[in-house]
């Protein structure tokens, strides 16, 4: 009996020793992994020490902002403000002001006035906290187009439609601009001109940004509805809900969306602390971003930063529902172009010649 007991105790001792050895191996290999991968261990330590360690987890589990209750929205905003204030060492506000009612925002740009100075681009970068050197993101791209590319006869613009006859008002189009292209071709255009002085008299300048389509293909392409159109007609993104699949980028005919391939490079001293949840708040790695018509400004009745920065007044912004707005007046009185009409996206960004 006592022998049996002794054998059992020996076996139990073996078992304990085996388990102990196994645990030792596991601990040693885990420690080795952390030593070999200093970046990961550093990140873990940094996350644990940083002030926002807890809010990051809360953010990870938060839902789509549009579907949140008022209380959840408040909490989400508070988390972001705390995190940005700590990260950029300046008091940062994140607004969630809703889009105004009775408004459909539209934008118009006078190609004959634009001098290609790119001040709109720089103002946009500063206002909207876009990533700087090394990982440059710019929501506006200015194209330089040879003036020879424009071809239409203004006198014949309204001509060339089938005229009524005793046989009816159908038939083929003749005359007018029917036999020669009416408009401006972007053939031979370049985006990365490095001219010392602008404008070059032989060129047009065409700034391109999100066209805020009324029927946006990017919204249809998003598998998680992170991008959506608000009731003022502006296409927005919930950066926290975006999964970074880039389907919207593929769907956009204007390629106006930009992806954060890495952690954005936004120096604390350049950070604009007045932000909006759907607008210019600092983005993170792996999410999409684009022009929002400066939602943080326009929802408060101000003009977009690009418009304010334009030294020649080439940009007009306003409410398409208001016949007295600048954009409606442009549509009523100027020669307006349609761009990539074939996609049927109904952009609310119009190019015109004054």
């Amino acid at each position, binding site marked *: 009996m006592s022998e049996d007991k002794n054998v059992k105790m020996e076996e139990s001792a073996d078992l304990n020793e085996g388990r102990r050895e196994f645990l030792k191996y596991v601990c040693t*290999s885990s420690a080795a992994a952390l030593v070999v991968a200093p970046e990961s261990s550093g990140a873990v330590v940094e996350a644990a020490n940083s002030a926002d360690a807890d809010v990051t987890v809360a953010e990870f589990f938060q839902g789509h902002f549009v579907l949140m209750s008022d209380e959840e929205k408040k909490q989400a905003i508070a988390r972001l403000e705390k995190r940005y204030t700590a990260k950029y060492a300046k008091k940062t506000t994140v607004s969630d002001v809703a889009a105004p009612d009775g408004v459909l925002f539209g934008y118009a740009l006078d190609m004959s006035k634009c001098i290609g100075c790119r001040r709109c681009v720089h103002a946009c970068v500063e206002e909207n906290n876009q990533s700087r050197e090394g990982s440059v993101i710019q929501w506006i791209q200015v194209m330089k187009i040879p003036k020879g590319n424009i071809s239409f006869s203004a006198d014949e613009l309204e001509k060339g439609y089938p005229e009524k006859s005793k046989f009816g008002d159908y038939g083929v189009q003749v005359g007018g601009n029917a036999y020669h292209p009416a408009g401006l071709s972007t053939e031979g255009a370049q985006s990365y001109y490095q001219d010392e002085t602008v404008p070059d008299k032989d060129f047009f300048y065409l700034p391109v940004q999100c066209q805020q389509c009324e029927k946006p293909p990017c919204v249809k392409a998003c598998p998680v509805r992170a991008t959506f159109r608000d009731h003022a007609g502006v296409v927005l993104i919930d950066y926290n809900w975006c999964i970074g699949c880039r389907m919207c980028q593929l769907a956009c005919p204007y390629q106006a969306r930009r992806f954060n391939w890495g952690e954005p490079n936004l120096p604390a001293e350049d950070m604009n602390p007045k932000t909006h949840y759907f607008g210019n708040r600092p983005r993170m790695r792996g999410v999409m971003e684009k022009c929002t018509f400066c939602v943080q400004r326009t929802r408060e009745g101000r003009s977009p930063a690009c418009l304010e920065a334009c030294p020649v007044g080439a940009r007009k912004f306003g409410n398409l529902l208001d016949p007295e707005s600048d954009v409606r007046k442009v549509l009523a009185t100027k020669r307006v172009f349609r761009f990539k009409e074939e996609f049927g996206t109904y952009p609310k960004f119009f190019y015109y010649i004054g």
Partner: protein
Amino acid sequence: MTDKENSRRSFFGKVAAAVGVVAAAGYAKTLISGAESSTAGVGEKYANDATQQEKALMGNRLVIMTDAEKTQRLDELLNCHYKELS
């Protein structure tokens, strides 16, 4: 009577240790090479996005609209807007 060196338990212990070491090495390699490749190619990827936009906009035509087309376009935009609100 168990031979401690050749027991099944010690064999599994060695296997588990070997798997642990290989997994840790693989994990470390992924972290290191992943960090290297993500920093090296990032600049190119940003530039590539901008180039893609340039390509997408090249060879297109801005077509001038007649008065009728402008009116039609505005009507469609407003109709679409009001339909969505209703």
